[in-house]
């Protein structure tokens, strides 16, 4: 008995290779996320252009901590893509090690972000302090929420990989990686937008 599925159709259909469903779905999701952050960033950019005074506000941020956090996220992006490679080549144990690193780096990012927020709140810069701070807390907060979600997803995959259940993990490391890289890319732009200019 041969039942029909999408895969069967792919075999039968001419080789106009279709993307894997999970990957296609993830990319579509990321496209919607791009325009979500796009809306927020566009709002920030125009307000910032209209209000030259915000540069002075931004000077209160610690460029050092921001830079360290950028390095942390870039490295975690590297580690999750290495986990993906390990799934394909070296196997579950190695993948689990890279995933552990990814999750840890994600947590380090959140900790550093938390330290920054504490410092800024302590210095009297709250979300209600002014326009720049409204955007600062909202943008970094929304990004941190995305980081948190990524840590949870990566953590689940880590547990599965550590339990030796590589098969169900399979391509999920790749899909989770796509999301994690996106979160990284958002930060790549947030860092100069908020800290550097």
């Amino acid at each position: 008995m041969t039942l029909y599925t999408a895969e069967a159709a792919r075999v039968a259909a001419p080789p106009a290779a279709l993307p894997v469903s999970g990957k296609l779905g993830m990319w579509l999701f990321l496209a919607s996320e791009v325009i979500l952050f796009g809306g927020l960033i566009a709002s920030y950019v125009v307000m910032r252009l209209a209000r030259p005074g915000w540069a002075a506000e931004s000077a209160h941020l610690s460029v050092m901590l921001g830079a360290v956090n950028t390095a942390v996220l870039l490295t975690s992006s590297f580690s999750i893509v290495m986990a993906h490679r390990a799934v394909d080549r070296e196997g579950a144990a190695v993948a689990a090690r890279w995933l552990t690193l990814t999750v840890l780096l994600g947590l380090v990012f959140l900790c550093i972000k938390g330290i920054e927020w504490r410092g800024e709140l302590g210095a009297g810069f709250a979300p209600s302090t002014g326009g720049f701070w409204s955007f600062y807390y909202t943008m970094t907060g929304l990004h941190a929420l995305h980081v948190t979600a990524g840590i949870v997803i990566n953590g689940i995959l880590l547990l599965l990989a550590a339990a030796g259940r590589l098969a169900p993990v399979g391509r999920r490391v790749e899909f989770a990686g796509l999301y994690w890289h996106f979160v990284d890319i958002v930060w790549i732009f947030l860092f100069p937008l908020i800290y550097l200019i």
Partner: protein
Amino acid sequence: MIPRADSAAAGVHVPHPEPRGFWRRYVFSTDHKTIAKQYLGIGLFWAVAGGFAAYLIRWQLAWPGEQVPLAAWIPEPMMFGGHMGPEFYNVLVTMHGTIMVFFVAMPILLGAFGNFLLPLMIGARDMAFPRLNMLSVWTLTAASLVLLASFFVPGGAAASGWTAYPPLSARPEYTGVGWGQDLWILAVALEFASFLMGGINFLVTTVNMRARGMTFARLPVMVWMQSTAAIVFMLSVGPLIAAAVMLLMDRLAGTGFYAPEAGGQPLLWQHLFWFFGHPEVYVILLPGVGIIGEILPVFCRKPLFGYRYIIGATLAASALSFFTWAHHMFIAGIRNLLVMPFSVTTILISVPFALIVFALIATLWGASMRFPTPMLFALGALSVFVMGGLTGIFNGSAPVDIYLHDTHFIVAHFHYTLISVTFFASFAGLYFWFPKMFGRMMNEPLGKVHFWMTFLFFNLTFIPMHLVGIGGMMRRIADPTQYELLTGLQPLNRMITVTAVLLLAGQLALVVNFIWSLLRGTPALDDPWSSNTLEWSTSSPPPHDNWGRREPLVVRGPYEYSQPGAERLPQWQVD
């Protein structure tokens, strides 16, 4: 998010086995057909609520401050023994809009018809991500509960319009509404999340799950419309989610995004809202046009005229819909240099839609027409849609919009466009696919009564509403008798209310028909309308895996009626 199909490299298995228990089967089901019915249930529930809100609004406009019949049960402080104050009137206009757009139109047109038809029409056994599908409908359920709860919190439900313009929506002291507005934002955000997941599912399903031989050029228009709607929604909703986050921060964290005294910009919300708001109209419109496009060929017994032109026009209109949003803001105080470009794009969007309408009308030429209820509603939808499109030209022209903006003319206009799809096309679809969904035919005589009641009283309600708007009556005012200018319009207002009540009463025909047919309707044949698209090749209702042991094989386009040598040539190859 992970497709089950991927875990089997050989790829020969059913997406999920048929569940046995009650809960997995009817409540937490991953079957697209069950999920479609759940969406339909949610949509119909809210349609009743939204319709009742419309009734209360209309009664208040005709007889301001007087006791509304059938409303004595509404507790204080919403209404006082059936009497309404301006606060609750504002809640009603806010909720009527929110409910009808987000909780009726989208669940029925996309959730119910999209979910039910997409896999069946392309020959799949289910959606690409069945569990994500279940998550979508349950997220919508959560959104519904939050919206429902918002009526009962201190301060009452949101009262700043479905557009929620700040600063009115940003600070409780402006409306007296506290949590209600926060819950409104939460409910709408959950609804967005639900349809975002659903839209991604639709798109991946359309791309990846098509049966053998189902090329893009053979897809029924409904599939094109649903997929295009999904793309449009996916690309437009982000900025509004960002705007909603900012609004929530303004309300809860004391930020000043929209507060001018803190350097914020109230107009920012309007831009981000309408960046989504205008494409959203097409998210609702396209599936409705898809339904009309499916039904006309079947009862005309001829191919859809200019299939490729319709698809092309749809894609063009969708792309253009991202460049028209500021026409909602001509007089909102936007920079003058933005006005005419947006007026031009707005008027231009009539071009692709004119093409679609002409193609649908051309489908009627040389036909051999039958007029069962679905056909009547499809023709009604076409007529109403044309009227809605034409009145839109007035509003699209920026100078005329100076006068018509925020009057009842615009109210009448968008009811013509939205009701044509949300109700006329949905009813057409319901009468048409009810046999496939539930395995029974709907009652024809009752259906015809329903159609004529709806068509007649709809036009009698909304044509005069244009006149009231031209007479200068503003939107969202609780008491027209407070204005000298409007006193002359009050008889017309009362007439509109009477016909609106009759329009609502006419819907009882549907309620009775629906319940009666569900229980006692004539059992349906597999292909009762002798239709060509793939969903009619399986049993009514389809089995859990849609096709049993058969593998759909598609050999031609969807509308091959009255071709040389054959009255109809179904899409599928008969084994």
